[in-house]
């Protein structure tokens, strides 16, 4: 996910001498590997103020991280992860539990920031991210359309917008083939109450919820730019900025940029609401993500302490107040902005949306879905065949990975 959120390229930041902004002087050399987007840059900058700190913000961090943390000694003491990318680090046990450090230094952290896995605190979260409904307030008001709350209403609204010809394409969607398209299916599938795998890791997507999710995806494509298979987050963001689309179920972390002054032609016209539901009394059809920090296992306790102190310093209220718009921060001191409305409504919805599961099975299924769903959208297969083939692909890779026998 971070890849889709990230800014281009790798950015290396080198810490300068400790300045007044940091409460103490860091003596131990600490380095961080994290994704490259605005929120990480803000945190890395705040940490660098304590001195002896180096951050590597890299689009490809996901490929590097497992190997870099498995090395003895690890190449980085601190890692930036999300609930999707923490899985290999937990599985290979290359990160350490933080309970004692939290007890010692973490009085100011909110309970919401403590990511507990198997009872132990394994990561300190800094922000949440989710998809929400992002829409053009002016278009909906002009056409006298109420803000849609379900996908049926979204499609009805899209039809009305198409009739009126208000924009080039009523909807946008991150349906780039591969990871993005896989997530779109997962969102809708969860929205229809589906479960990806059962207790024995056998796939359970070839059912009514799976077919409905595919059908909704197909219905959405009718209102998209026909080239939707290349449409990633940046593409959708640009479509918003250029006023080409009116609505999209889109990353909360992109809301600011979509209506940003200087970049966008629709400044102030972008609004957000909770992610649409797939069924009226179901959860929002989306998944919830967090980004946060982990500490490597194979380092000395002194280094770990120094690293943890940097986390506390990097995630303090000063940093959040200075970078309030960069993310939906979990850190005390965050003031939700106008555009955070959709994400917060999504997070508070009842029944609640699911957190994206950090499991091996999920990684395998996400890949199988990303490669398989387009066969239905392009018309190469019908829904049942598509889902059966995706299940086959999943079973093959799960066998090869040793997850099922």
């Amino acid at each position: 996910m971070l890849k889709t959120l990230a800014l281009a390229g790798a950015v290396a930041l080198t810490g300068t001498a400790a300045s007044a902004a940091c409460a103490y002087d860091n003596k131990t050399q600490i380095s961080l590997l994290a994704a490259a987007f605005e929120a990480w840059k803000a945190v890395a900058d705040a940490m660098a103020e304590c001195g002896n700190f180096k951050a590597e913000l890299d689009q490809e961090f996901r490929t590097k991280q497992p190997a870099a943390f498995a090395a003895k000694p690890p190449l980085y003491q601190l890692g930036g992860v999300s609930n999707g990318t923490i899985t290999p680090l937990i599985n290979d046990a290359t990160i350490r539990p933080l309970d004692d450090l939290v007890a010692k230094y973490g009085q100011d952290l909110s309970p919401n920031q403590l990511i507990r896995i198997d009872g132990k605190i394994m990561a300190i979260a800094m922000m949440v991210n989710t998809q929400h409904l992002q829409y053009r307030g002016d278009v909906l008001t002009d056409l006298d359309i109420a803000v849609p709350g379900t996908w049926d209403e979204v499609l009805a609204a899209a039809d009305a917008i198409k009739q009126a010809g208000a924009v080039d394409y009523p909807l946008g969607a991150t349906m780039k083939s591969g990871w993005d398209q896989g997530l779109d299916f997962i969102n809708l599938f969860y929205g229809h109450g589906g479960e990806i795998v059962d207790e024995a890791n056998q796939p359970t997507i070839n059912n009514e919820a799976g077919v409905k999710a595919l059908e909704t995806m197909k219905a959405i494509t009718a209102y998209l730019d026909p080239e939707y298979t290349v449409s990633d987050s940046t593409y959708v963001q640009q479509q918003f900025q250029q006023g080409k689309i009116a609505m999209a179920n889109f990353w909360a972390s992109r809301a600011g940029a979509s209506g940003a002054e200087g970049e966008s032609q629709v400044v102030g016209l972008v609004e957000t609401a909770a992610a649409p539901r797939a069924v009226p009394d179901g959860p929002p059809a989306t998944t919830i993500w967090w980004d946060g920090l982990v500490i490597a296992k194979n380092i000395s306790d002194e280094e770990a302490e120094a690293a943890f102190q940097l986390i506390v310093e990097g995630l303090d209220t000063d940093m959040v107040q200075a970078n309030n718009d960069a993310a939906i921060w979990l850190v005390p001191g965050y003031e939700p902005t106008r555009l955070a409305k959709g994400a917060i409504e999504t997070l508070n919805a009842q029944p609640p949306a699911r957190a994206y599961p950090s499991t091996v099975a999920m990684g395998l299924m996400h890949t199988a879905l990303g490669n398989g769903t387009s066969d239905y959208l392009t018309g190469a297969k019908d829904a049942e065949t598509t889902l059966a083939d995706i299940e086959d692909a999943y079973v093959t890779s799960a066998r090869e990975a040793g997850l099922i026998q």
Partner: protein
Amino acid sequence: MKFRTFAAFVAPSLFMMILFIAVPLVSVLIQSFYVTQPVYERIEVESCTPGFPQPVCTTRTSSRPMLDEGGDVVTQTQFVGLQSYRNLIQPDRVRAALAAGSWDQLMTIDFWRALRFTLFFTLITLPMVIVLGLSIALAVNNAVHSLRGPVIFISLLPFIITPIIGGLSIRWLFIGDGILTSGLEWLLARNISMFSQAWTLELMMIIYRVWHVAPFAFVIFYAGLQTVNQDTLESAIIDGANRWERLRYVIVPHLMPLIIFIALIHLMDCYRVFEEIIAFSSQSYVISLQWLTYDLLSPDQAGNRAISRASASAMLTMVGIVILLIWPLRRTWREHKGSH
């Protein structure tokens, strides 16, 4: 040359070739027969995720790799024979598709879909590259002397550009309301989406590849044209051969070894078509064998990689290249023998 001297000269490169080509190849071959996987255990895991404002905790059974005392993941390696190849080729589904006589059904299997495009792409671009390369070479050869330098320079430009960069340039020219798509839309007065069906994507890939490789063929042919026997050409003119006949009976036979050489290189390169798939993000519609290997080898976010299947896929790609090369290699070999 004495054998010892010869051996001394060849040994370093031979060593490098063994180290960097033969050994990895053997290693890939072996890996394609084995599967290494972590040993999983099932445990109850309680995990908490941030909510707004309160965290949400859930308990689920989850599979985790077992760790040994040293804290490393316990793995097991087992010999699986041709299982990875079967997973890739899917003989059962192929049989079912053939029994049903359904081409579409066969094309839903990734490997065969990739093979179909790879072969089609390789074989269709080959004659185009040779004809275009030869045409440019002939045109340059007949151009006024003062013009040759600049013309050669301009013709070589596509070849200098890194393939993925060239591919991305084409992407930006055509994607969405790219400048060329807009131009075409204006010309044909209709809406055009180059990235929303297979055939337009394949067309762009073919055009791009020919544009990119033709300069290579051109350089080789141009060099070859400098060695055409002028006496033979002049006598052909005296015998009344027209331009076409001179090309057909004098120039092309003279260039034949070079044509075979270019075919050889092009088949090898083109069968590994990859950059186009990435640059055009075409995997919903079109994939290639090399892309398939890459996709199997890329870790997903949980860190899984299908290394055995990727090895099998890489081996099959190599076998495919060898089969394609049999014809030109045999021809070269026969000519080589004939010249002695």
